[in-house]
């Protein structure tokens, strides 16, 4: 019996959460939306004059207790979506110099708890099949050419996703691989939680006009 994996799988039952149709089951506190007022000793200048910029924030907790997280996972900004990808959205990840945190959290959206395949989000092994390029990590010399080649190899229409503080602002470690305005979707966090990643991708594939029943609007 031990090798009937199929039966073993069925025996475990459905482990996938109701998210995004319902609330997140286990949202992490860090990273999540931060609010508060007063001084903060911020190593990345994410808090300036009391205003918090999620894209620079590395969620290092140095601003506690003046600022507090509220568990809200909507840490993303979609400036351009694409309705064409409504049914299937293939993402090609490029690691330009990450700490592997963003890689892990991106891959985690395919684990049974989130199971993004049921929502029409897939990963692909080549940019030639990709609808979106997902960039993680700071810019490194060795990956510059690969990033350019990957972007060139993608068919139109295409989206570019920046994942994590390093890709968006360089975070605390270096410089970002692309300028801010080249990202169509910006997902904040260090690293962003799978909930955030999933929400951002869902919004991107629904296009600009209108959201479907599950994806709530991103803020920021």
């Amino acid at each position, binding site marked *: 019996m031990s090798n009937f994996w199929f039966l073993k799988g069925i025996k475990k039952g459905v482990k996938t959460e109701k998210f995004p149709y319902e609330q997140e089951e286990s949202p992490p506190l860090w990273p999540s939306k931060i609010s508060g007022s007063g001084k903060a000793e911020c190593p990345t200048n994410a808090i300036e004059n009391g205003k918090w910029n999620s894209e620079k924030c590395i969620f290092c907790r140095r601003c506690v207790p003046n600022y507090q997280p509220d568990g809200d996972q909507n840490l993303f900004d979609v400036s351009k979506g694409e309705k064409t990808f409504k049914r299937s959205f293939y993402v090609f990840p490029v690691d330009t110099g990450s700490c592997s945190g963003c890689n892990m959290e991106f891959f985690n959206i395919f684990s049974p708890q989130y199971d993004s395949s049921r929502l029409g989000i897939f990963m692909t092994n080549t940019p030639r099949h990709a609808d979106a390029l997902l960039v993680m990590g700071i810019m490194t010399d060795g990956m510059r050419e690969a990033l350019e080649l990957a972007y*060139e190899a993608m068919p139109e229409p295409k989206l570019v996703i920046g994942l994590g503080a390093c890709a968006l602002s360089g975070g605390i470690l270096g410089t970002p691989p692309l300028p801010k305005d080249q990202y169509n979707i910006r997902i904040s966090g260090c690293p962003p939680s799978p909930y955030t990643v999933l929400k951002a991708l869902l919004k991107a594939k629904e296009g600009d006009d209108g959201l479907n029943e599950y994806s709530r609007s991103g803020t920021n």
Partner: protein
Amino acid sequence: MIPYLHYLPLAIFTLSAILSLSNKKIAYLFIVIGSIFFAFLQFRSENEITYFSLIVSIVWVLVGIYSLSYGERYGRWLPSLLSVTIIGMFLILTASNYVLFIVGWEVMSIPSYLIIAINKRDSPAAFTFMVFSELSTIFLIAGVLYAFSLSGFTTFTFTSLHSAIPLLLIGFGALIKMGMTPFLISEWLPIAHGSAPASASAIFSATMTVMGVYIIFRMIEISAGSPGLYYVGLIFLLIGGMSIFFASIYAYISENMKILGGFSTIENQAAILSAFGLFLISSDALLKQFVLVTIIIFTFSHSLSKTGLFLTVGNSSGEYFSEAKNKNSLFGKVGTMLSIISLSGLFPTIGGLAVWMLLESFFMQAFIGGYAGIVAIISGSIIAVSEGMVTGAMLKIFFFTNLFRKKEENPEKLQSFVVFFVGLAVVTLFAFSVLMIPQLFLSGIPSVLVFNGLMIESRFGVGDFGLISPDYVILLIAMFSLLTYGVFRKPKARISPAWNGGSPVSPPYTSFAYSGNIKIMLKKILRTKTDTYGRDLSVVDVFWSSMIIIGVNYRKACKLVTRGFMNSSVGWYMIYMIVAFMVVLLISVLFF
């Protein structure tokens, strides 16, 4: 008819050999003119034996035109020596007696050693080529003397014989020259052919080997009805089957383009030899006639396509696949493609027809049954397998010269054009192949617009077997291509750059890797030779290693014998050549 007119080409070729000392271009032009005259004077559509003259003159014309573009690349010796070789072949093809034939054989062979010796200094290729060629001459002379004795020591002319021994001896001599004996498949031929300039390689591979086919053809004709022919046929089938199988494998795994061409030559010759074998063992008169036609068509296809192949390879720089670089030319590419399709035995080329006819012959014999049928089905299967392997080998040439590698600029227009012309010729010959086939094997099905005389039927004593209509094939291919184009127009492809995991695209795919599948499949036979660190060096096979041992010892013995009066320096070849010429002249003067 003007007397001695048929000596006109001889005069032109001789003139060419002399003129080349002052102007190479004119010499090549004379080769072209002489060949055209030769074809016109010799060719009779009703006489099968004259087809050989037509075949070789077409090759000479093509090589002559191709060589016009050589410029300063080779010295004045090349056109001169080529002309002398051609004179030798002229003598063989026009000889009416054995002596003139032997004279022609030597006149043909001697300059070829020199061409290789001058082109590749410090290479044993010329030496081994000479040793094996002279060995073949010894067999030929033995055969001739036996035939002479059979005639009661009265005449040297080709008269009908009542023994199979001269055929066997002369056949062996020819087979050595064709690279199939003494070791079923001989390394020296590919190496020797590969060591000459492209034009000479083409002449050697496409016409010199045809001389072997010609003489066997001739000998079979005059030995008809002799006892023991059946066993000669079995020997031919055995040698042919083994040679074709191994030649196709070696061609497939070869790393050197010209050597691949050489192995492919052996493969083609072995196919023709098998056809001879089938002719000898078969007792069905109609089938025998079909086999003879097959041999002519096969020789035609081999000579033309092989010329195309060697000229293509000559067009690329670098002998090895790893360094192959072809000139960027659409004409050249199309010509190469058609040549290799023909060598692979695929439609719509003359090679396709040749292989089809050959396999049909074998399977017809198998249908008739008996021991001959069993032999035929085994040989036919081996040939079919080998033809498949050859397709892979040929594609390898095409991929590595025309697709994979970066192209060089400035293609030589004339050279590409000649290659293109060869490609055109193999298709044209296919289209007009019905003209070369006796009425006996032609028919038609007017109800589906295949008119009478446009369809080739393989027939034997029992009845009809298979059919093909070359023009119908071409028409269908053309029609469907045009139809596809008409419906879909130009493909609406979006061209996006290739993706190589983020690394720049430079696939260093080697031909060694290309043939990896065969090396793994046949790893019981083919062993990858490794060095002391366990790293791959080259591929050897179990039979080959033992053959090499015999070959090396044989060569050593030959060297010991010949060291006294000959070594591999060019000067000695010169002396040998002059002495041999004097002997030849002396014999000719004495005889006539």
